C-alpha cells in the first residue's frame, strides 16, 4: 500500500489552471478509490444490503420459495407471538444468554487476573487458555462436544464412576442439553480473557502502590481500582458477548441435531431462536415467517444493546481525556 507507483498520476499536470487540475486529480483519485472498493461494495449491496431489504419485505408476506410472495401484512408477527414453540425458543435463548454470558465473563476475568501477574511460563498459559476460542466455534468441536456429553460418553461415565449417579448423557436430556451448550460457550472464554488482559495492563501501577500505602488489601484494591479502571473493557466484553450469545446457531444445531424428533435437541431442549428460525425457513419452507423472526431478533438485540449503552453512564468509568 505504501509504495509509490510511478505513473501518470505523479507526472506534473500540463494544465494552465492549477486549481482545476487539482480538482480533476482529486476526482480521479476518488474514482480509483471507489474502484478498489468496488468488490466490497458490490458484495455488500448484493449479498448483505439487498437480501436484508428483501427479507424485510418477505417478513410481511407468505413466501414458500416456490410461489411468488403474497402480502399478508402483520400476520407473520401475529402467528409468531401466538406460537408456543416460538415462545419456548425465546425462553431457551434467554436462559442461554443469561446463564452463559456472565459465567463466561467471570471465568475470563478470573483467569485474566491470574495471568496478569508476572510468572514463569505465562506465555504458554495464555496461549493454552486462548486456544479454545480459536477452535471453539468450529463444527468439528461441536461434534466432539456432542460425543463427550452423549450417553456413554466421557461425562456420562464420569457421573457414574465418581458420583454413582446414572442420569445418562446430557445431550438426550431436554433440560441438561442447554447446559452442555452453555459449557461449550463458557469454555471459549479465551477471547474476552485476552481483552481483559489488555485492559489490566493499562491500569497504572502507581494507583495500586498508593492504595497499598493506604493499607488497602487485595480485595479492596480489586473493587476500588481494578474494576473501575477496566470497566470500559468490561462494558465492551458484556456488549459483544451478549450480542454474540443471542446469535448462537451452529453449536446448538449440531449438538442438538438428530437427538430426537426436533431439529434442536430432545423435546426442543436446545431450540434456540436461530434454530427455530432455520426450522421454519428451511424445514417448513416458510421463508416469510422466518424473515419476520429474523427482524424480530434484530429488534430485540438492538433493544438490549440500547439498554446496555444507557446503563453504562452509571457504572462505566472513563479516564479523563479518554473520551
Amino acid at each position: 500500500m505504501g509504495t509509490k507507483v510511478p505513473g501518470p498520476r505523479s507526472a506534473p499536470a500540463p494544465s494552465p489552471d492549477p486549481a482545476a487540475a487539482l480538482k480533476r486529480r482529486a476526482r480521479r483519485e476518488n474514482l480509483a478509490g471507489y474502484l478498489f472498493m468496488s468488490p466490497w461494495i458490490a458484495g455488500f449491496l448484493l449479498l448483505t444490503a439487498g437480501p436484508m431489504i428483501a427479507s424485510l419485505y418477505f417478513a410481511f408476506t407468505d413466501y414458500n420459495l416456490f410461489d411468488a410472495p403474497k402480502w399478508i401484512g402483520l400476520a407473520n408477527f401475529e402467528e409468531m407471538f401466538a406460537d408456543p414453540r416460538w415462545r419456548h425458543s425465546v425462553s431457551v435463548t434467554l436462559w442461554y444468554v443469561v446463564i452463559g454470558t456472565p459465567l463466561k465473563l467471570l471465568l475470563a476475568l478470573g483467569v485474566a487476573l491470574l495471568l496478569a501477574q508476572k510468572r514463569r511460563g505465562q506465555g504458554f498459559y495464555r496461549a493454552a487458555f486462548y486456544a479454545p476460542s480459536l477452535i471453539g466455534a468450529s463444527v468439528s468441536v461441536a461434534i466432539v462436544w456432542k460425543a463427550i456429553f452423549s450417553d456413554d460418553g466421557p461425562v456420562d461415565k464420569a457421573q457414574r464412576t465418581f458420583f454413582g449417579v446414572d442420569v445418562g448423557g446430557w445431550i438426550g436430556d431436554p433440560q441438561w442439553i442447554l447446559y452442555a451448550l452453555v459449557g461449550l460457550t463458557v469454555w471459549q472464554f479465551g477471547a474476552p480473557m485476552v481483552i481483559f488482559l489488555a485492559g489490566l495492563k493499562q491500569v497504572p501501577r502507581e494507583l495500586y502502590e498508593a492504595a497499598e500505602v493506604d493499607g488497602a488489601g487485595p480485595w479492596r484494591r480489586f473493587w476500588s481500582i481494578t474494576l473501575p479502571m477496566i470497566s470500559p473493557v468490561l462494558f465492551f466484553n458484556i456488549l459483544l458477548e451478549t450480542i454474540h450469545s443471542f446469535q448462537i446457531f451452529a453449536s446448538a444445531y449440531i449438538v442438538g441435531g438428530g437427538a430426537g424428533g426436533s431439529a434442536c435437541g430432545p423435546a426442543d431442549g436446545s431450540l434456540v431462536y436461530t434454530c427455530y428460525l432455520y426450522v421454519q425457513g428451511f424445514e417448513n419452507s416458510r421463508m416469510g415467517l422466518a424473515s419476520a423472526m429474523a427482524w424480530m431478533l434484530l429488534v430485540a438485540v438492538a433493544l438490549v444493546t440500547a439498554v446496555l449503552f444507557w446503563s453504562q453512564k452509571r457504572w462505566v468509568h472513563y479516564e479523563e481525556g479518554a473520551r
Partner: protein
Amino acid sequence: MHESRSVDRRAMLKIAGGSVAALGLTTAGCGGGAGAGDGTVTLRYSWWGADDRAKRINETIKLFEKKFPKIKIKTDFQPYPDFWKKFNTQASGGNPPDVFQNAIGFLRKYDAKNVLLDLHPQAKAGHLRLEGFRAGLEKFGEVDGKLLGVPVGSNSMALVIDKNVYTKAGVKPEQGWTWDEFDAALKSISDKTDRAGDSGMYGVMYLYDLYLRQNGKAFFTEKSLGFTEADLKQWWEKGKKDTESGLVAPTKKVVQAKPKSAVTAELAAGEFTWDNFTNRYTAEGKSEYGLAPIPTTDGKKTGQYLGSLMLSGSKRTKHPKEVAQFIDFMVHDPEVAKIMGYDRGVPSTTSQYEAFKPTDPVAKEIAAYEESLVAAGVLEPITPHPAGADVCEMAFMRLAEEVGLGTRSVDEAVKQFFTESKTALGS
C-alpha cells in the same frame, strides 16, 4: 470466537438476510445438465442414504455409463433430513438434480410446486419400460394420472424384534395377532426380561397410520388429516400410560441412545419401523433381529401397504429421454440388483427380484416377510400423501416425544399437533 468478533455486525445482518442470501446464491448457480459438443449428456443424480448405499450406487453407475457411453452421471448424496433441505433449496432456485431418489410422502408436495417430471410420455416413447413390476408397484408413483416416480424397491412397516428377548419371554407373534395379545406380550417381556417391550411406538406416524386404517380411517386424506383430536388423544394417552408403567422404554433413555436404535441399545425388545431396517439393526447390535407381524384390531386386517423408494425426474431437466433411460436401467437391469441387494427394499421388478437371491439370513427374512404379506392378502393400496405431510411427520414425532418425556400434557400436544398440521397442509 476470535474471528467472529470482527464480523459481529455483519454476522447479525447475515442472520437477518441469510435465508434470502442462500436463495440468491442458488439462483445464481448453473442450469445444470449441460450437453457437450459431441452429444455427451451429463445428468445430476442425488439420493439420501449412508456411505454403504453410496458405494453400491456408484458401482451401478459405472455399469450404466459403460452401457450408455454418451451419458455421464454426476452424483451427490446426503443423510435423509439434509437431503430434503438441500433439494428444496435447489428446486426453489430452479436448479434441482435431473434425477433423484424420492418417496411417497413427497410426490404431491413437489408436484404442486411443478418440480416433478411426468414420465408417462417417456414410457410411451419406449425409453422406460413399465412392464415386469411386482405387486402393481408401477402404479405407486402415479398422482392424478401423472407418473411422478418409479419404485426401485418395496418395503413394508413391520415389528422389528430382538429374537432372543422374544424367545426368552416366551412370546410367539403370529400373523393376525391382536393389540390385546400384543399388550400381553409387552407385559410378559417386561416381566420376564430386563427390557421394555417396545421402543416408543406412539411417535411412529406410519404405525399410527396402520392403526387408523384398521379402523377404517387413515393418517392422511388427499388434502388433510384423516383423524380427529379425540382419536389422537386416545392413542397418546395409552402411550403415556404404557411408558409410565414401563411396558414401553423410557423416552429419555431412547432419546439419549440416538442415533442408535432403542432395540440395538438393548432398551426395548422391539420397534415398529420399515422391514429393511433389520439390515441396519443387525449391523448395529449384538443380538439376532427378525420381523414380526403388525398387530390387528379384528384379527385379520393389518392396514399394511408396500412403501417404496422411487426415482423421479426433474421437470426442468433438459434431457428427459436420458433420465428415463437411466431410471429404466436402474429398475430393470439384473446386474444392478446384484450390486444393490435389499438396500432400498426388495427390488421392484421381477427381473431384479430373481437376479438377487439373498444368502444372508436377514435378507432372506425380509423377502419371506414381504411374501407372507402377499400370501396373507393384507396389502392395501396407498394414496400419495398431501403436500406438507413431511412437516406433519416431524411434528408427530417431536410432540409424541414431548408427551413421553412429560414436558407436555397429552391435551396440549394434541392441540399443538393439529395447529401445526393445519398450517403445514394448508400452505
